[in-house]
């Protein structure tokens, strides 16, 4: 049986090789986008949905770059997927380390804990927007990306630094494995 590749090393290497940009431009751009959404939609819950949807659209495309650059082989199981997302995915795009915790094989689901998050630098959520899930775009990205590799998941924040917790935590649950689309006319 082939030994599992060292995902952390792959993640570091890919991040080292990719072109990079000032993180603060990224942070400020995201902030401006959230501000724009709050202006476009009255309801905070609707903004949360929009952020997730935008993340989903990003995820559909991001997965291609991920596969092309990281060259990781197909994941053997959902737990493997968790490791790849945390060590390679988050590292190569955001330059941060994420940890996999609370692995539950029955559902199956896992949690991703983020100690740092470039989206939320300088950010404080005022009282009237308390139910805003500021980084909800990340949930959408994971959902979109995994759907393109035949996994239907549900992803949501269960802990949020902007709400007072010591770290941010996303819970990812596998709902179903998707079948590859059969072309019209074939069996």
């Amino acid at each position, binding site marked *: 049986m082939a030994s599992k590749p060292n995902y952390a090393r792959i993640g570091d290497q890919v*991040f080292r090789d*990719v*072109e*990079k*940009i*000032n*993180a*603060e*431009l*990224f942070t*400020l*751009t*995201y*902030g*401006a*986008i*959230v*501000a*724009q959404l*709050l*202006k*476009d939609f009255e309801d905070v819950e609707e903004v949360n949905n*929009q952020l997730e949807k*935008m993340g989903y*659209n*990003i995820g559909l*495309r*991001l997965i291609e*770059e991920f596969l092309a650059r990281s060259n990781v082989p197909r994941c053997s199981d959902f737990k493997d997927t968790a490791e790849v997302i945390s060590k390679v995915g988050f590292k*190569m*795009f*955001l*330059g941060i380390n994420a940890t996999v915790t609370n692995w539950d094989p029955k559902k199956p689901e896992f949690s991703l804990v983020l100690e740092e998050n*470039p989206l939320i*630098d*300088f*950010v*404080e*959520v*005022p*009282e009237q*927007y*308390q*139910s805003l899930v500021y980084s909800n*775009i990340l949930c959408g990205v994971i959902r979109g990306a995994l759907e393109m590799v035949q996994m239907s998941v549900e992803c949501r*924040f*269960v*802990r*949020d*630094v*902007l*709400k*007072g*917790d*010591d770290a941010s935590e996303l819970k990812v649950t596998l709902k179903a494995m998707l079948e590859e689309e059969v072309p019209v006319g074939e069996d």
Partner: protein
Amino acid sequence: MNSHLSVAQSAMKNSGSYSSLEQLAAKASFSEKRPQKPLPILSRPIPKGKSEVSLSAFSFLFSEFIQYSLAKVNNITELEKRLSDCGYNIGVRMLELITYREKNYKRETKLINMLTFISYTVWRILFSKQADLLEKSTDQDDEYMISENQSLPITKFISTPREYSGLNCASFVAGIVEGILDAAEFGARVSAHSMPLEGQKQMKTVILIKFNPDVIARSNLTA
């Protein structure tokens, strides 16, 4: 000499929706117990600004914002305005950050120094390189141009199809420049244009800055 407001104070002044001095009541929404309220933003140290993310992450985010905006507008001009407005807010904040970090609160008062600040320092921070060319327009007294011989790093993936011809996504960068100039009291109208490079097929991006009359008048007085 006037010194800049501190970053945090200015952030409070300028932002609409995402900074507040008021107490953040940690209402339990999805966690059973909230041990403490989040540290208020003014108590947090300002990061060093050396961290980076992949250009792809930014490109995807920017790309999605463009697609989202496309659905909300009726024509190219409106889309460019949205991008420019988005950039404007960023520019205002960037000026505070960069001035605090790089120049120890010193404020530019001369027009040409301000332009050099943008094409050298700001460009270096945003795009890891200085602008290819900064020049004054030969026929207009109030116009200056910052040019990039190739498309900017954040727009190089975008090739506009025929139905969107005339769209320039560098309007976002134009917005950033406009925000910076406005916040530094050098009001101007800034726009982005694509022109073919002399004698070549390649397009260069030009950020055109047209200063307000009072800025030019002031500049001529102090020259």
